């Protein structure tokens, strides 16, 4: 790798960000659920950014869809908590 060039994340790294967001959500009953959802959302936003940079179109589309689905889940969970 050339000096100063950062490694581009691959699909595995993007999935790992998504998986960590899932764990924030799954473990949220043990802590402040709203704070856990906020952490998960930040993680998913990083995952969305990394997914958008993937050159493998199939992986990019699949991972972007997984991020979108989870952001929708978080929106619904937030609505229930607010309502």
């Amino acid at each position, binding site marked *: 790798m050339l000096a100063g060039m950062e490694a581009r994340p691959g699909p595995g790294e993007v*999935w790992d960000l998504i*998986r960590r967001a899932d764990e924030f*959500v*799954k473990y949220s*009953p*043990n802590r402040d659920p709203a704070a856990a959802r906020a952490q998960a959302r930040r993680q998913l936003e990083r995952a969305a950014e990394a997914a958008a940079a993937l050159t493998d179109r199939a992986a990019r589309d699949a991972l972007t869809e997984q991020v979108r*689905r989870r952001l929708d889940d978080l929106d619904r*969970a937030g609505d*229930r908590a607010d309502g």
Partner: protein
Amino acid sequence: MPTAEEAARVPPGQRLTKGWPILHAEGIPPFDPATWRFRVTGAVERTAEWTWDEFRALPPVTVTSDIHCVTGWSKLGNNWEGVPFREVLDRAGPSSAATHALIEAPSAYTANLPLDALADDDVLFAWSHDGAPLPPEHGGPLRLVVPKRYFWKSVKWAVGVRVLGRDVRGYWEERGYHNDADPWAEQRYAWQESR
């Protein structure tokens, strides 16, 4: 330190936990025994429905089994009391087309499994854990227990079974987790399915 016998019961990539971590993606639903219903629908000869008292009157069994969570912890030697899945299914009578089922919770949470796997002797709907009523945070009043799969398949707060003539992915299975979820094969993620 686990004994050699205990260590042999821990699948690859798992570690033993002393407590029982609380994990779920949805909030704990309220439970009112007066209005609670359990239904078996779909590819069955007759839709079956039970009240809480009727469900608790089904013939109980006790099963001791291990828990393996996809997040990496395992908890050995759990004593469950409940009713076998196949006892519940038989009361509805699966149709000749029935091959799979989605286990349903009050929220949108579901998990899918083949009926063959659900017919195992150690698969049950449990209302008791280690001699005490199953606490709400662990799925009480009733959860499915499927010891041979990662624990997300063991649906908390179970209220129904939708019997199907084909496989339909559940909540986590749609979100990139493995359809089969065998902890001994480390089937954690959907991308492993094409291997």
